[in-house]
């Protein structure tokens, strides 16, 4: 019987397997950031263990760094200690670090692909659940906890039970103006937040093949939001073109050997998945969340649902609680919801393509009075490239704040936070209670919806915007 993509990559990394034990899996790349690593390095120090493969390890600062005044010392002393601890640990254990101020600094899941370190057929881990992003290249990539970070540092391996496999096939093409973000939000609303539990998911089908690498990363990024262990997409020409020429991409004979191998990384025709889900992209529309988990979403053209729309008693209670927290009433059209803050950024939608899309929509418009728009590039490279292309000017002319690289308002940890009761439209991945700051209310949206929302001050799509003379923005 044939094997799935996930099974092929898994099999290539088994160091040891024994009955009744999890497989011991070799890890090709270990990414590190300041929040989930201090206790792991401490553990090594206590046990007198070195980092086994510093040459397969890369650290960056992202969660806890400010996106303004990044050339000054971090103001919050506790945050500063955490960042300084990473610097100390990286120096002591010989790990390459891209600190604040470095041109390669940024969100760990933007930095890996951008350097060309993320490649097909690899195993990649990081103490961060959105490590699933790297699966867009046909890698097995998943988030781990701090004890596991220590385990990988010490041994470059992880004991892992073999996961089940699932295929999500998305047939047809996405309509104009509907993005990878809408696709994945639709999927999560369809499966629920626990639907992927225990599975490595392979996204496939025409709509997936037609996505850019950025779009594929957006889809794989949010695999964790429906519980999947990892998400993957088979590498193809789009993948190879993205990697070729990047700083850490294979060169010369290595490139040829790599390509030859990468082309074998597809699911065999006779392989069997443990589960299959099929969706039709052609019926998808801009999709937004109304509640406090990423599965609580509806099309932008719909209304806020109420407890009566659900059969299950747990769903009814969850809906009631979510509406109360979000300050929403059932039956309100989503387009009538006013927002205070719009956040464009994060490892879901903070790459150059996302910023181009946002600029295209916002060009010639102004951010609505009473609304603020924060545009935060995923990495310093993304920021520099955007500035090269003049995107920063488009944002500034519209009245947006143009920031430095980092996780920023994706999570309420650094200074960029919502205040209690403040409502945001956010291109990030989590709308949990308090995620963007205590009491903050989050609507997850795509980049075009975020940009249009900033202009109108309420949830909107680019189609809702008045035409701008000389502008080419369009959407639906």
């Amino acid at each position, binding site marked *: 019987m044939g094997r799935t993509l996930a099974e092929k990559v898994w099999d290539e990394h088994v160091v040891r397997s024994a009955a*009744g*034990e999890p497989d*011991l899996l*070799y890890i*090709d*790349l270990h990414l590190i950031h300041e*929040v*989930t690593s*201090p*206790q792991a390095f*401490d553990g090594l120090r206590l*046990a007198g263990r070195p980092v086994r493969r*510093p*040459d*397969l390890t890369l650290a960056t600062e992202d*969660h*806890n760094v400010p996106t303004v005044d990044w050339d000054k010392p971090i103001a*919050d002393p*506790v*945050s500063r*200690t*955490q960042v300084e601890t990473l610097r100390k640990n990286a120096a002591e254990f*010989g790990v*390459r670090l891209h600190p604040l101020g470095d041109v390669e600094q940024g969100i760990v899941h933007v930095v890996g692909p951008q350097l060309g*370190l993320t*490649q097909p057929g690899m195993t990649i881990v990081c*103490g*961060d*659940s959105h490590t699933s992003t790297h699966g867009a290249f046909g890698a097995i990539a998943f*988030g*781990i*906890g*701090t*004890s*596991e970070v220590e*385990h990988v540092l*010490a*041994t470059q*391996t992880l*004991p892992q*039970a073999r996961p089940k496999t699932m295929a999500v096939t998305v047939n047809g093409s996405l309509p104009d103006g509907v993005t990878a973000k809408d696709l994945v939000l639709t999927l999560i609303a369809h499966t629920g*937040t*626990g639907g992927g539990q*225990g599975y490595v998911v392979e996204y496939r089908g025409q709509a997936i093949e037609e996505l850019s690498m950025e779009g594929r990363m957006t889809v794989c990024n949010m695999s*964790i939001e429906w*519980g999947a262990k990892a998400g993957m997409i088979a590498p193809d020409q789009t993948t190879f073109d993205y990697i070729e020429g990047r700083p*850490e*991409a294979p060169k010369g004979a290595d490139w040829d*050997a*790599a390509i030859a*191998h990468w082309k074998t990384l597809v699911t065999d025709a006779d392989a069997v998945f443990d589960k299959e889900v099929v969706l039709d992209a052609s019926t998808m529309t801009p999709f937004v969340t109304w509640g406090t*988990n990423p599965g609580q979403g509806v099309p932008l053209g719909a209304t806020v649902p109420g407890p009566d729309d659900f059969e299950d008693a*747990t769903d009814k209670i969850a809906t009631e609680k979510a509406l109360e927290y979000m300050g929403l009433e059932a039956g309100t059209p989503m387009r009538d919801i006013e927002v205070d803050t719009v956040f464009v950024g994060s490892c879901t939608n903070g790459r150059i393509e996302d910023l181009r899309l946002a600029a295209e929509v916002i060009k010639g418009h102004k951010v609505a009075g009473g609304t603020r728009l924060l545009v935060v590039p995923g990495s310093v490279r993304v920021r520099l490239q955007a500035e090269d292309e003049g995107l920063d000017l488009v944002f500034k002319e519209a009245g947006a704040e143009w920031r430095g690289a980092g996780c920023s308002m994706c*999570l309420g*940890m650094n200074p960029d936070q919502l205040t209690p009761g403040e409502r945001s439209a956010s291109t990030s991945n*989590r709308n*949990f*209670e*308090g995620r963007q700051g*205590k009491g903050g209310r989050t609507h997850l949206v795509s980049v075009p919806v975020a940009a249009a929302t900033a202009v109108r001050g309420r949830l909107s799509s680019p189609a809702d915007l008045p035409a701008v003379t000389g502008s080419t923005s369009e959407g639906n």
Partner: protein
Amino acid sequence: MDAFTTHTGVGVPLRRSNVDTDQIIPAVYLKRVTRTGFEDGLFAAWRNDPTFVLNRSEYAAGSVLVAGPDFGTGSSREHAVWALQNYGFKVVISPRFADIFRGNAGKAGLLAAQVDDKVVQRLWEHLESNPGATVSVDLEAKTVQAGDIQDSFDIDDYTRWRLLEGLDDIGITLGHDADIAAYEAERPAFKPVTA
């Protein structure tokens, strides 16, 4: 890590599903570089509510948390497990755990016991009508007991064995050093390095 065989302690009924790690411990509490002291952030937002279950004196000494399905979804922060442990929890019972949370719990020595949905419902009723009642968990026998409720729970055999023996994962793996070295010798040259 200490070996875990049985535990009996005050059961805390948490009538919530989808308790994500941002609820268990919000990000602002994650800045410490130690492994202790995270109890102050545990369920921080909910603890502002005087009626929240942990704010009721009968449950304050709780060590067995009984929660709804999809417990521990969201971020990979192991701080969620530490916060529960720092507070005094030894066991979390739920019909379904998020994968990363379950993995983290196993490594850190917090027992994540998966039971049938109906068992959680019965435990909730029992613990609410008898505030301060205890729940007993036997890892050897994989059973949970409270009042006249007696049922089994699920946990994978490997994690169970490690918890029962109190074994350190890294030590076990380092015992297979020869296998790792042999694997490394065969890795393709085109794989990237960071140094």
